[in-house]
């Protein structure tokens, strides 16, 4: 009686003309995301290829950028390292602030205040980077320089807080750039962390508190283990933004090809994106191709960081999958 039945192919059709049009056009639009990413990569690669070929691996590792030399030498090393250094400093500063903010919003504030704080953090995210740069240059830099001076005075014996010459002033350093980046990525990390925190079982947490756990132990033993993945993802999303930040860093950092390994208070450093902006005006011919190559490298780095970030965030929030 029960011979294996043929499974039928379920086709949602035949579709009406309108539906065919509806699905086909939205499908084309959706795949445009793919086309756009590919176009960016292809166009930049084509323009950057001669430079990448002539400079070889030195483009990434070397530290000379002299478009007037013959043969021309274009090497991005200090800028690449600077981007990483600044992003790292930014994350070190931003993460405790963002996690605290998220904790405050989700677990401590009454509902109405929590909403107001959420709005404020989102407002911070909406501030244009040129405005942050303006503030960073004219308001924050003098202030942060005084912090840096204090740091150097008392902690100068630690190499990262040492400077070659305290007379140089403490402006235009990776330390300040790191702070500026932190201001811009705090909202990103906060909103991801907040989302993760708010999905935790609140009764479980309050129960842990009621059973005699302190807030600190509850945070360490209940909240953090279950949400750390998501927080790391949020930090990585912030990292992606930090690496690509252009205008604000351009104003507050003294860009030099003299590599600054980790002397945070030394008044010079590097950042790929800002370097592109700084050199663009006078660049011509080969140097412009070099800047395209720099953009390509930057894009590839952010692609990798963002992919990792989204992978981790999505895994930490299984309920987000449809």
């Amino acid at each position, binding site marked *: 009686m029960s011979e294996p*039945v*043929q*499974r*039928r192919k*379920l086709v949602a*059709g035949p*579709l*009406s003309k309108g539906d065919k049009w509806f699905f086909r056009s939205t499908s084309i639009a959706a795949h445009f995301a793919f086309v756009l990413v590919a176009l960016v990569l292809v166009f930049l690669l084509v323009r950057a290829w001669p430079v990448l070929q002539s400079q070889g691996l030195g483009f990434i590792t070397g530290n000379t950028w002299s478009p007037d030399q013959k043969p021309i030498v274009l090497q991005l090393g200090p800028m690449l390292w600077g981007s990483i250094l600044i992003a790292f400093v930014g994350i070190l500063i931003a993460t405790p602030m963002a996690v605290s903010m998220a904790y405050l919003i989700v677990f401590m504030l009454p509902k109405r205040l929590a909403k107001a704080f959420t709005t404020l953090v989102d407002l911070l995210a909406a501030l244009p980077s040129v405005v942050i740069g303006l503030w960073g240059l004219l308001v924050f830099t003098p202030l942060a320089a005084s912090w840096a001076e204090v740091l150097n005075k008392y902690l100068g014996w630690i190499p990262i807080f040492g400077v070659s010459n305290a007379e140089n002033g403490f402006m235009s350093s990776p330390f300040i750039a790191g702070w500026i980046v932190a201001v811009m990525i705090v909202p990103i990390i906060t909103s991801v962390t907040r989302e993760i925190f708010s999905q935790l079982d609140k009764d479980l947490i309050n129960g842990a508190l009621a059973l005699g756990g302190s807030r600190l132990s509850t945070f360490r033993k209940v909240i953090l283990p279950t949400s750390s993945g998501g927080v790391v993802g949020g930090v990585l999303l912030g990292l992606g933004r930090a690496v690509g930040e252009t205008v604000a860093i351009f104003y507050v950092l003294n860009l030099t090809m003299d590599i600054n390994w980790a002397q945070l208070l030394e008044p010079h450093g590097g950042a790929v994106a800002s370097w592109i902006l700084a050199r663009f005006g006078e660049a011509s011919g080969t140097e412009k191709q070099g800047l395209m190559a720099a953009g390509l490298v930057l894009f590839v780095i952010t692609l990798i960081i963002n992919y990792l970030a989204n992978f981790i965030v999505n895994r930490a929030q299984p309920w987000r999958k449809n």
Partner: protein
Amino acid sequence: MTNLITSSSLRAENVSVWFGERQVLKDVNLVFPANQVTALIGPSGCGKSTFLRTLNRMHELIPGAGLAGAVYLDEQDIYSEAMDAVSVRIKVGMVFQKPNPFPTMSIKENILSGLKLSGRKIKDADQLVETSLRRASIWNEVKDRLSDQAISLSGGQQQRLCIARSLAMDPEVLLMDEPCSALDPGSTRRIEETISELAESMSIVIVTHNMQQAQRVSDQTAFFLAEEGMPGGVVEFGSTEQVFNGPIDQRTNDYVNGHFG
């Protein structure tokens, strides 16, 4: 299994259903004669709601869904290539578990939405609205507020509005997926009365968890069951009288007498 076949308007033949690689229904054979109310009963997860959705091709909206067998509406296979889902759904209406009136539309617009959505001309809108609402026995409650938002109604009224919305399409078959599970007893009673009246002009298939409801409203009953780790299927199918009072299968007996599930 049965010899109830008369002037059937809907007939499922060897229907099997998969979600991805998992088979959830196996070889279901049921006949839904015209002007009869059929109740589908069984414990949760036995596939009765899934089966209901195969009857108007709502099933295919679920990603990864698969199907074998055939469903005949007036001797025409609704899954054949000649049929399209839209025309099937116009003939086979559906009422869902939770009331789902369109929140952006008024009561009147909700009633007319089916015609608009399926792109048909509306002749004598007012008459159609009144008839549909009357047939769902909600006319008296809403006749003075037809342009109010539909979501301003109570839950039971919303569900009857959803029934009226389906009736406006003049379906041949009406599928109801636990239509009263979210409602209070008063609303439930009124909907049950409505079902009996509607059966005069269409066939009705209703999924229910409520044994008393099945006995009150249905002419025939199918008992679905899924054994541990196995696809679900029909254990017993017959007149409601027979299934509840003289079940042949021991499992049916256990279920209708509340021994499990």
